[in-house]
């Protein structure tokens, strides 16, 4: 029987933006910076849509947690083809542990058979939320997925691991997080963008869910990484070998 799939998406600074650290060390400057759906979340939405198109999923629900603008990210998922959205409204910095708890609250109501998330957000680079969600639900997890084969009672997930690839079999319901090579996300067509405007987005105020959202980590300072000294262009490979021997990196 086709199952419901829930996909979590995050609004982040666009992947092509080179962020700047504020001179006072209070964070990175996100004023007037282009924001988009996190690239790994796009891959998650795409995978859910492909499973629905293959007749293995009945419905794809996109969930995002954040301020009013997070609705735009949900709308992007709907324009790609998701059926409906859930927007958990919350202000300020919400850490993965709190996100996982909020997602669990939504999942307890929605009862999906599979949850797909990106493996990490390209802003905080934490790579935690999917694993934490699986822990809180007591579901098995298939992280860093490059292939997802959904069966009736289980899902085979091929994972990108340090030495190559590994496949695990997970009993459903399960949590999967996407790696880069899982798929190539589609672009939303103009008619689909128009249609997405009519699809429903349910709004939930995070405060009503009774979850402590206070960050456990305090960011004391945000700094620029150490800059590298300017380099030199050399005339020939022989000159390069000479320089490398001088600096001692080549014997």
């Amino acid at each position, binding site marked *: 029987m086709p199952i419901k799939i829930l996909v979590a998406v995050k609004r982040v600074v666009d992947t092509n933006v080179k962020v700047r650290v504020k001179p006072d060390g209070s964070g990175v400057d996100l004023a007037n910076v282009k924001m988009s759906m996190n690239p790994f979340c796009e891959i998650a939405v795409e995978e859910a849509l492909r499973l629905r198109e293959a007749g293995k999923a009945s419905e794809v629900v996109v969930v995002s947690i954040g301020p009013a603008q997070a609705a735009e990210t949900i709308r992007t998922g709907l324009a790609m083809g998701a059926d409906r959205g859930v927007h958990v409204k919350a202000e300020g910095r919400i850490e993965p542990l709190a996100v996982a708890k909020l997602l669990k609250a939504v999942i307890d109501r929605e009862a999906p058979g599979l949850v797909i998330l990106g493996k990490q957000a390209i802003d905080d680079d934490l790579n935690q939320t999917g694993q934490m969600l699986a822990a809180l639900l007591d579901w098995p997890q298939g992280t860093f997925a490059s292939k997802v084969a959904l069966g009736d009672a289980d899902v085979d997930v091929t994972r990108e691991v340090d*030495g190559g690839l590994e496949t695990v079999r997970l009993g459903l319901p399960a949590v999967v997080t996407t790696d880069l090579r899982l798929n190539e996300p589609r672009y939303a067509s103009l008619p689909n963008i128009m249609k997405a405007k009519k699809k429903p987005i349910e709004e939930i105020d995070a405060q009503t869910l009774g979850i402590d959202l206070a960050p456990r980590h305090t960011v004391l300072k945000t*700094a620029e990484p150490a800059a590298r*000294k300017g380099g030199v262009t050399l005339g020939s490979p022989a000159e390069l070998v000479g320089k490398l021997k001088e600096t001692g*990196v*080549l014997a």
Partner: protein
Amino acid sequence: MTTLLVAEHDGRTLNEATARALAAAAKLGAPVDILVAGEGVGAVAEAAAALAGVARVRVADAPALAHLRAEPLSALLVGLAAAYDAIVAPATSTMKNALPRVAALLDVMQVSEATAILGPDTFERPTYAGNAIETVKTRDPKLVMTIRASAFAPVGAGGAAPVEPVAPPADAGRSAFVSAELSASERPELASARIVVSGGRALGSAENFRALIEPLADALGAAVGASRAAVDAGYAPNDFQVGQTGKVVAPDLYVAVGISGAIQHLAGMKDSKVIVAINKDPEAPIMQVADYALVGDLFELVPALKAAL
């Protein structure tokens, strides 16, 4: 109390990332126990016991732990957590899989990919693909942390820690290992190699990648890496990828061949001691981080460089 460091290994040999993470774990200021979990890991446990400064090695040996799936490994760690203030592991794919699960079960946030230990509760970690370094202080009662191994020098040998067995947890059985396809390589491991030679899209084909990058790497005794573009184009396997979403390396020498230097790629290699770029475009972003650059056709420069070695 004590810090528990989870050993990274392949079942037979202890991964060097463990000795690097041990250097970081020691900076927390408490005695460090190492946990070796797996099946038939006696040799790994002996290697862990020989690392300098280890208090105890605890060994959980069971079939359910054979492939270090997140579910049984996290159950094991949660069972041991009461005796420890901190659970620390190198940020390898195995540990990035399991440790956030441990953190959530303990109701704490994880500190991911720490690059500096400033105190028992204060750490530096990179964000935004390494374009910002955050100093974070945690108020959690228990620390769960992964370590960016390339940011720490490994501790040496000379220890003789006692080795003690611990009881493995029961496996809930809702996940199972099916198969693995691991890349066979005689070269040094990418994450800990002293020299890395990486190829990018400009190589044009898998044949060119093999014909140009691999001989140069072998001449240098180097590991082979690749840009995301080269991996996506099928020139090199996934686990060669260097970058924000692949491996983070900091070798003594990094040679980038035909790699433009996208933000994503720089995040994985810009802490290398010496960076060499071989590229036909003098304006490529890689040139801004390269110490030495050769500008020209890589199909001529790479063989000439190999010949000059």
